[in-house]
């Protein structure tokens, strides 16, 4: 075999299984569970990646005990009623000749009693830093129950026709809590020395092996560095791997970094953290054991994955978000079509970001994610009679609508008033740390080009221009404009909006105030951009802290580190009420006092934009099939533009 990724497509034996390639869709939460059971959505979701050619799938965690319930949509696997739901998944995945493991886990003290109305269980009665609920230090009867729970659930997975199990002993697990000095303060046989701290893990593995027999795969996922005080570090993890291999019960070692409730931003790293940042872990383990080792950590494309293998860091590569964005990642890689892959942005907006909000997982670029049955591969049917479709606006919404409509066989003309396609994304990616967000447009432009959509830039689409095309359908995706009337005085001369700055239209003065009412990347990005150019920047927001919505995308910690380095001043809890020359008056939300943030040289508005719906209003009633999508309906984030583009493209 030759091509872009030769080693990636070399088979590998893991225990009894022969994997067709080295790509793993490793375990991750989806919030697809219904009534605490695996749903149909799960089955279609995994099937889609199996069809796309991945070598191995590992499901999200299957909880082993009723004391474990850290988030609402956890799968309760400790009841035999899961088995038929398991078979629904394994039937669909096995039909694609893809092996699949079930990850089994107990989250221990990284949980609360909110749903269980029981104390959480942990090695010691120490509150988790996120949940802040003191757990019960498990008694010996409890430990026996934990072990029995793992064995029982392993048996259910086997009856559900999985090919094996993975024990999550890493970022959110009672097993890691026992392994770590940070959380294990016990003085009995389960605490103290490494041997003692490993005891629970070894007892669990032995119990599972006794139940499932030799041919059922057992993989163990270990944390290579907890990144916390007194936490697990790589040397100890290598030792654990060595001992487990010597015990002879396990078939594979998967790796992970960080803990889910303290350093999550290192587990599901956003674009602010370089790719391959966690490879030191599989690399070190692989030197010590012969078992196959899985490496993970923001692997975005097959060339990167291939390099991980050829450089000897791992035997298998976990690729999650890239396959969430493009379920056909593996097939395209195998066919040497890496450039056709819809690259993941590592933006975390709709995948990781929705997890923290207890919502089902999606993808900013791929509305089909989690809705495979409705929008998945193969659901886009060619039309019988091609229509002439005019799409007005070449931002994400318009581009998405154009690709979907064109894919179905319509003849699409895309009109854009600017010289460049991409809408606001063109400017958002001017900020160095946000550059990868630009892949959303790269991916769409690649499709537009392949599909032969007729693109006309620099065209002001008046109703006459649109109607002159004699369209059968019109999609209005005209976006939004800056709102310069939202605050008294915000139309003044020293005021600019975010795009004015990022596009270079306005050059900021020395002293700059950013007014943030959005709480997302707009303010933090423009602040970073100007501070890097040497401006003295302050960000003022009515929210509790600057960048309040950066927490769920895991950008918060690293933006703040950068902000401190660039001396960006962050001022929360203030609502700017008026601007005039020399003054920017703001109300302190809680004291009611007025504070003057002026004088400053430049004021930058990171506030809600205004829908640009003039064309829609003018065309309403004059076009039979008229669609309005994205910001011109109501300015929101990119995912809304993409979803509405997808829906419009399908509706025509």
């Amino acid at each position, binding site marked *: 075999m030759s091509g872009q990724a030769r080693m990636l497509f070399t088979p590998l034996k893991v225990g009894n299984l022969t994997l067709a390639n080295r790509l793993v869709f490793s375990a991750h939460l989806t919030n697809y569970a219904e009534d605490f059971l695996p749903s149909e959505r799960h089955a279609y979701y995994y099937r889609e990646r199996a069809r796309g050619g991945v070598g191995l799938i590992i499901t999200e965690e299957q909880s082993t005990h009723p004391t474990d319930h850290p988030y609402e949509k956890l799968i309760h696997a400790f009841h035999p009623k899961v088995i038929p739901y398991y078979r629904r998944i394994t039937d669909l995945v096995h039909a694609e000749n893809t092996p699949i493991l079930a990850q089994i886990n107990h989250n221990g003290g990284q949980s609360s009693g909110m749903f269980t109305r029981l104390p959480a269980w942990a090695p010691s009665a120490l509150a988790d830093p996120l949940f802040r609920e*003191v757990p019960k230090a498990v008694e010996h009867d409890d430990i026996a129950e934990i072990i029995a729970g793992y064995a029982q659930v392993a048996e259910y997975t086997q009856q559900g026709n999985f090919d094996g199990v993975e024990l999550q002993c890493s970022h959110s697990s009672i097993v890691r809590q026992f392994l770590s000095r940070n959380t294990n303060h016990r003085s009995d046989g389960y605490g103290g020395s490494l041997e003692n701290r490993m005891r629970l893990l070894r007892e669990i593995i032995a119990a599972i092996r006794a139940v499932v027999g030799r041919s059922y795969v057992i993989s163990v996922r270990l944390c290579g560095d907890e990144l916390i005080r007194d936490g697990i570090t790589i040397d100890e993890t290598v030792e654990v791997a060595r001992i487990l291999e010597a015990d002879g019960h396990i078939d594979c070692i998967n790796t992970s970094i960080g803990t889910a409730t303290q350093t999550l931003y290192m587990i599901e790293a956003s674009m602010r953290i370089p790719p391959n940042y966690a490879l030191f872990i599989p690399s070190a383990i692989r030197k010590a054991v012969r078992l196959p080792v899985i490496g993970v950590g923001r692997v975005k494309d097959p060339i990167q994955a291939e390099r991980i293998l050829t450089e000897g860091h791992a035997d298998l590569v976990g690729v999650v978000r890239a396959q969430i964005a493009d379920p056909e990642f593996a097939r395209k890689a195998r066919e040497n079509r890496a450039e056709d892959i819809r690259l993941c942005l590592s933006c975390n907006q709709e995948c990781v970001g929705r997890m923290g909000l207890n919502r089902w997982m999606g993808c900013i670029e791929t509305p089909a994610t989690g809705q495979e049955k409705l929008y998945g591969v193969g659901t886009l049917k060619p039309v019988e009679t091609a229509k002439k479709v005019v799409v007005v606006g070449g931002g994400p919404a318009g581009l998405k609508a154009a690709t979907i409509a064109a894919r179905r066989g319509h003849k699409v003309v895309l009109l854009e008033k600017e010289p460049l396609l991409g809408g606001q994304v063109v400017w958002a990616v001017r900020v160095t740390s946000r550059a990868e967000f630009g892949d959303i447009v790269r991916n769409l432009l690649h499709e537009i080009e392949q599909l032969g959509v007729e693109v006309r830039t620099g065209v002001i689409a008046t109703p006459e221009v649109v109607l002159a095309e004699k369209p059968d359908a019109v999609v209005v995706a005209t976006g939004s404009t800056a709102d310069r009337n939202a605050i008294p005085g915000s139309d003044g001369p020293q005021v600019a909006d975010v795009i004015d700055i990022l596009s270079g239209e306005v050059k900021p003065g020395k002293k700059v105030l950013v007014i943030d009412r959005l709480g997302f990347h707009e303010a933090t990005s423009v602040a970073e951009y100007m501070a890097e150019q040497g401006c003295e920047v302050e960000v003022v927001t009515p929210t509790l802290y600057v960048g309040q919505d950066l927490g769920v995308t895991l950008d918060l910690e690293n933006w703040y580190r950068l902000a401190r380095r660039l001396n960006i001043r962050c001022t929360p809890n203030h609502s700017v009420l008026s601007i005039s020359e020399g003054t920017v008056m703001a109300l302190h939300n809680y*004291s009611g006092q007025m504070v003057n943030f002026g004088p400053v040289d430049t004021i930058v508005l990171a506030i809600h934009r205004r829908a640009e719906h003039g064309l829609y209003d003018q065309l309403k009633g004059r076009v039979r099939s008229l669609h309005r999508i994205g910001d011109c309906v109501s300015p929101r984030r990119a995912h809304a533009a993409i979803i509405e583009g997808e829906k419009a493209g399908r509706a025509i």
Partner: protein
Amino acid sequence: MSNDSTMPFEGLFAPLSLGKKTAPNRFVFAAHQTNFAVHHRFEKRHADYYAARAAGGVGLIVLEGSVVHVSDTPYEYVIAGYDPQVVEGYQLVRAAVHRHGALVLAQLTHSGMQGSSHYSQQPLWAPSPVPEVNSRELPKEMEPEDINALIDGFAQAARLALEGGLDGVEINAGQDSVLRQFLSPLTNQRGDEYGGDLANRLRLVRDVISAVRGQVGSGAIVGLRLSGDEYAPWAGIKPEDAVAIAQPLAKDGQIDFISVTSGSIYSGHVTRPGLFMPPGFATHLAAQIKAAVSLPVFAQGSIVDSEMAAALINEQKADAVEMTRALIADPDLPNKLRQGQVDDIRPCLLSNQDNIIGIVQNARLSCVNNPAAGYEGDPEFAPLTRAPVPHQVMVIGGGPAGMEAARVATLRGHTVTLYEQSHHLGGAVRLAAAAPGRERLALAVDWLEKQLRKLGVTIKTGVEVTPEMVQKIAPEAVIATLGGKPRQRPPGLFQETAPLVNPRQVLSGEVPDEAGKAVILDAIGDVIGMGVAEWLTERGWQVEVVTSDMFVGQKLTASLELTPWNQRACAKGVALRPQIEVQRVTAHTVIGVDIFDRQEITIDDVDLVIDVANEAPNEELYFALKQAGVRVFRAGDAIAPRYMAQAILEGYRVGREV
């Protein structure tokens, strides 16, 4: 039945005509989110929940809101009132409620800009593109066809409610309602006939009322929920505007009652008010509207005390009282009042501790003081049965867990002796209630103590129980509820000379008489740090709160206490110092680092340092007894220090199990 003790409450038991129907009394269990729905329908769990209140004597139940259009999914488990499948759920609930003689209405609602697009993946609807300040989401300005769809939605939902056998509907034009957003110039900036002057802003509500009345006819009840004050005086509905809104709608003659709530996008915390709002804070708004219209008017706003409720009726400030949370805490409140058992009513604490339905985790509604709330159908809350063999039971520890365990065990026929090492009962709750504004928490333990005395439980205070004592007394079972204790802190953090105290010491007054500068190191971010801060400021201390979180009071958001706390902190001059990790505390200095750049930050001239950290369980006695082969149970903080809700629930459980 009527005797001297019930006389003042008599007014509450007068029937109330609502249109052509009559509610048997003046108690209302108002609409509220529960998160019990499955597939957007009312469930058996709802039926059990409402039935318990109906059986307890409430006269009118307004069900959890039913949304009237597919564009609105404000929370994941909302009731889809537009879906014909809702009818079956209505029937289920109706049957359960009517059996006990109460009336039952659906609440029809659309959240407009206060909804969420996360579930629907559609833009929010609103009169104008005004950003919602909490979600920061910008809604779509409704087009004429959207307005028509909304009106049709209300009509369709009203029809389904009647098909479900309900007595009528309440139309929500109060908090969380697109109708209020149309009524208020704060959110309605339209230039068409639905915006501008009052007549225009009223248009949609009138259209909706007409459409609903047209569907349900004159036999069913149609009520209207209004916001009496949006607490946004610069542009919102002020009390006088609320009267001007209510009067013409009442005159139109199509509605049967008005329920008066308060709040808007800027005042979410008033919608689910906690201990920071005085009971009855919004009743003047109802009184004002009652004075201006000739319809029955319902009052609302932390009405939890029966005396206040009775006074509102007797003084003709309202025709009915919404006592929703009081009825969550004790479903039998009306019956107990009527039977003169005023002292037996389990009080609502207004703490919102176990009523945190608004958080993204979708917690199900329950009650700190009544763990059965929302779990009425669960076998563990079935009526208590007598223990097959009555036992001598020793309960060790007189906090809420121990008292609840003693109460339940006694009710089951056991002979219980309760031991408490201090000189009073109540445990850590007494300390929590010592914080300013949190006095009401003590009602929980006052009630338990009264019940124990009434049941004749032997109470021994000032006794520290040892394993030897237990061996000597030789009870058949022991319940160890010794609570929590301050935790051993990591070495190196506090120098020996540091002026260190824990929250227990502060709240029991063990601090220097002379006030100085106090620094609270808050590792939890909940009511403890807040309570300690306010206790100290009240005694003249200059207080700073240090946390490594992004802001102080991170755990106060669930119970909506954060905003009022921030307001009080400002007023009282408390300095909030977030994003600092404390590394060392010396005799007069707190030394920390910025959590991001690790630059050192010092706070000098410190006279007192309060270490607010999770406690450790007081578990030694439990393990000693267990080892000695005693039949021993534990509950509450003695397992793991948490909150009162867990203590009461686990106390109840061991009382039932022993």
